[in-house]
C-alpha cells in the first residue's frame, strides 16, 4: 500500500544521468538473470514418474519381443 505526501524535502523526482547509468545493467547480465529465472534444470529420471514408467514399459515390451524370438 502506498500513500502520497507533499515533497517537502524537495527530493529530486527525476533521476539524474548518473542514477540512470548506475542502475542500467548490461544486457548480457539481464539475459543471464532471465535464463536463470525461466529455464528450469532437467529433472533426474527417478524424480519424473511419467517418464520413468514410459521407459520401463518400452523396456518390458522390448524384453518380451526378445523372448518371443
Amino acid at each position, binding site marked *: *500500500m*502506498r*500513500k*502520497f*505526501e*507533499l*515533497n517537502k*524535502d524537495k*527530493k*529530486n*523526482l*527525476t*533521476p539524474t544521468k548518473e*542514477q*540512470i547509468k*548506475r*542502475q*542500467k*545493467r548490461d*544486457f548480457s547480465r*539481464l*539475459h543471464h*538473470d*532471465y535464463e536463470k*529465472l*525461466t529455464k528450469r534444470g532437467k529433472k533426474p529420471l527417478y524424480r519424473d514418474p511419467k517418464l520413468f514408467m514410459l521407459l520401463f514399459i518400452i523396456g518390458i515390451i522390448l524384453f518380451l519381443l526378445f523372448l518371443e524370438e
Partner: protein
Amino acid sequence: MTRKKNISNLSETELIALAKKDQKYFGPLYERYFEEIFRFIFKRLGGDEEIAGDITQQTFIKAMANMGRYEDRGFKFSSWLYRIAQNEVSMYFRQLKKSYSVAVDENRIADLAQEAELEMNYMSMDQQEKLVEILNSLNESELELIELRFFQAMRFQDIANIYNITEANTKMRIYRLLDKISKLWNERK
C-alpha cells in the same frame, strides 16, 4: 560484426519479430527503452533509486518472458512496456506490509487542483495537504489514473494505450475522477 551491424539497422518491428523468436535479440529494445521506463518507475516510487532499478530489471525480464504473447495492435511498443511496468509497481505496493510514502511535487498538486476546478488562485500548504489527503482516500485504480495523467504528465492517448481502452474512455474516467475529487473537496470545506 556484420550481424551486429545488421541488427542495429533493423526497424523496431523487425527487432520485435526477431526478439519473439530468440530473447537474445531483445538487447536493442532494452537499450532503447531502459531510460524511459526507469524514469517512469522512479517517479512512481517518488524517487527511490534502488527499488526503481530493481523493478525496471524485473519489468524487462517479464517483457522478455512474454515476448511471444506480444501483439502489434497499432500501439507503440513502449505502451506495452509501460503496462508491464505499471503492473510491477502496483504489485510491489500491494506486497508491502507497511504503507509506502510517495513524494509529490507542489506544482503537480496545483495542476491537479486547477483541473479539478477547486476555485482558488493560490494554494496554501494546508490546502495542499488536504488535497493529498483526498487523493489518499481514493482506491488504487483511481490513484493510478491520477498519477499517470498529473504526476507523470502523460497524454490521454498514451494512458489509453497502457490500459488498452479508447482515448474517449480514458478522458471520461479522468474527468469523472476530477468531479469526485471536487465533490470530496467541497464536502470537507
